[in-house]
Every structure is written in structure tokens, then in C-alpha cells.
């Protein structure tokens, strides 16, 4: 199983996510493009995902909803921009709970000889908006130094594990 690398350097409006998967990129691109496949993986298992619109093509609006067990809904929408290819998909992203706070997300699929590196670069309008998005946990770490931070916190002992799992 791969490791997800999340980078969010303090004071910048960017979030970068990297993850390698064991499949050719045509297939990965399909899992990102086909609404029926997208529904099967994007977001936590405990949420039901309802895809209202997802047809990757320049100028098309997309929208999906995550619904938890209590029926609470978290809806997101945006627009696809430019050619949506096996190399790269670009879209705007907005959580309907925070209207007007829009990020611009580019997903790249990098061929690794049968495996694929998925690289996502999100640009937020302000540092504060990015920080709030991360804080909301994407009801919707960071900087590579924060991988070391996990390590550091781990060394501080038991109470860490307890509070991190709550």
C-alpha cells in the first residue's frame, strides 16, 4: 500500500498531495473521469457519495455530495478547465459550506512504467483560506518537515497517540 505525501508549507496558499498507485495511468485517469468509478473511491467509506454531475470537459460544471450516516450533506462543485487528458485534469473546487472560497486544482498522472504517480496541486486564494480548508479536514501535512513533525510528536510519548486518534 502506498503512502500519501501531503505538503502544505506554512505561509503559502498551496497544498500538494502525492500518491503512487499500482496501475497504468490510463486506468487511473478512468477512475478519476468516470462518475461511477469516482463514486467508489473518493472520500471516506462512511460517506455515501452522490455524483450530480461529473463529465470532465472544458467548461463543464461538476458537483457531488458526501452524505454521512446522520444524513448531513457536504456538497462540492466547480468547473473543469482546459483539456482533461491522461496527463492532466484541471478544475476549480468549492465547498458549498464556504461559498466563494474557490481553489484551483491540477491533477497530474505520471507514468512510472505500469505504476502511476498521482500529483495534485491546489492553489487557494489566500493562506488563511488554505489553512481553513485543511482545518475543516475537507468535510470537505503538511510541508515535508511535518513528516518529521509526526516523528517528533511520536517521540513525545503516549498522550500523542491518544489525542491524534480522537
Amino acid at each position, binding site marked *: 500500500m502506498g503512502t500519501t505525501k501531503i505538503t*502544505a508549507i506554512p*505561509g503559502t496558499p498551496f497544498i500538494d498531495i502525492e500518491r503512487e498507485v499500482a496501475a497504468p495511468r490510463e486506468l487511473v485517469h478512468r477512475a478519476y473521469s468516470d462518475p461511477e468509478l469516482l463514486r467508489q473511491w473518493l472520500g471516506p467509506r462512511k460517506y455515501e457519495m452522490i455524483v450530480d454531475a461529473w463529465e470532465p470537459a472544458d467548461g463543464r460544471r461538476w458537483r457531488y455530495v458526501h452524505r454521512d450516516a446522520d444524513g448531513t450533506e457536504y456538497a462540492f462543485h466547480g468547473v473543469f478547465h482546459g483539456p482533461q487528458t491522461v496527463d492532466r485534469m484541471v478544475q476549480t473546487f468549492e465547498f458549498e459550506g464556504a461559498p466563494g472560497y474557490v481553489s484551483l486544482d491540477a491533477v497530474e498522472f505520471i507514468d512510472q512504467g505500469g505504476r502511476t504517480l498521482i500529483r495534485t496541486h491546489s492553489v487557494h486564494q489566500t493562506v488563511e483560506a488554505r489553512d481553513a480548508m485543511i482545518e475543516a479536514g475537507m468535510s470537505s501535512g503538511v510541508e515535508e518537515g511535518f513528516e*518529521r513533525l509526526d516523528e517528533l510528536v511520536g517521540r*513525545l510519548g503516549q498522550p500523542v497517540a491518544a489525542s491524534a486518534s480522537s
Partner: protein
Amino acid sequence: MDQLSAVFGALADPTRRAILARLTDRDLSVAELTQPFDVSQPAISRHLKVLERAGLISRNRRATARLSHIEGQPLREATEWLARYRAFWDESYARLDELLASLHPDSQG
């Protein structure tokens, strides 16, 4: 600047992270902290001031040396800050792995 921003600002610097890592073992004086680094003692003192303002360390005078002590709570809050975001993507990609494996069973591993 709120506490979390101060914590992240303080953690953005590699020397300050290295200082914190050393303080997880034991409390240290400025002189002891300066030793392994290729920077001056005043520079280390400035880093300690930033860490102290962020609440990541406290400093106590014992005998003649002023010892720096790591404070765990702000670090815990900082990791919790990204924990849910990370969990969202960890779980999504784990599901994507399963989906891709089912679509393409010979490509596992």
C-alpha cells in the same frame, strides 16, 4: 497572529525543527544547543525566542544556565490540524487502490 500560525511559522525553519528534535531527549542550554549547528549562539537564541513565542518551548534558569524545555501540547495541536485532512486522502487512496486492483487484477504489487 493566532497560536497555530505561530506554531507553523516556527516549525517552517529546519534549524528550529532540529532544535526541537534535540530537546525531545532532554532540556539543554543555549551553548549546548549551539554546538552541533554551524551558526552563532545569538542566532540560536533568536530561534529559541521564536519557539518560545509559539509556545513550543519554555525556558527556565537553573544555576547559571538557562535551559530550554520542549512543550508537547502545541505540537499535538499542530498535527491534529492536518490529521483529518490526511485521513480523508489516505482513505480515498486506499479505496482507489482496491478499485484499481479490481479493474486490473494483474497489476498488483
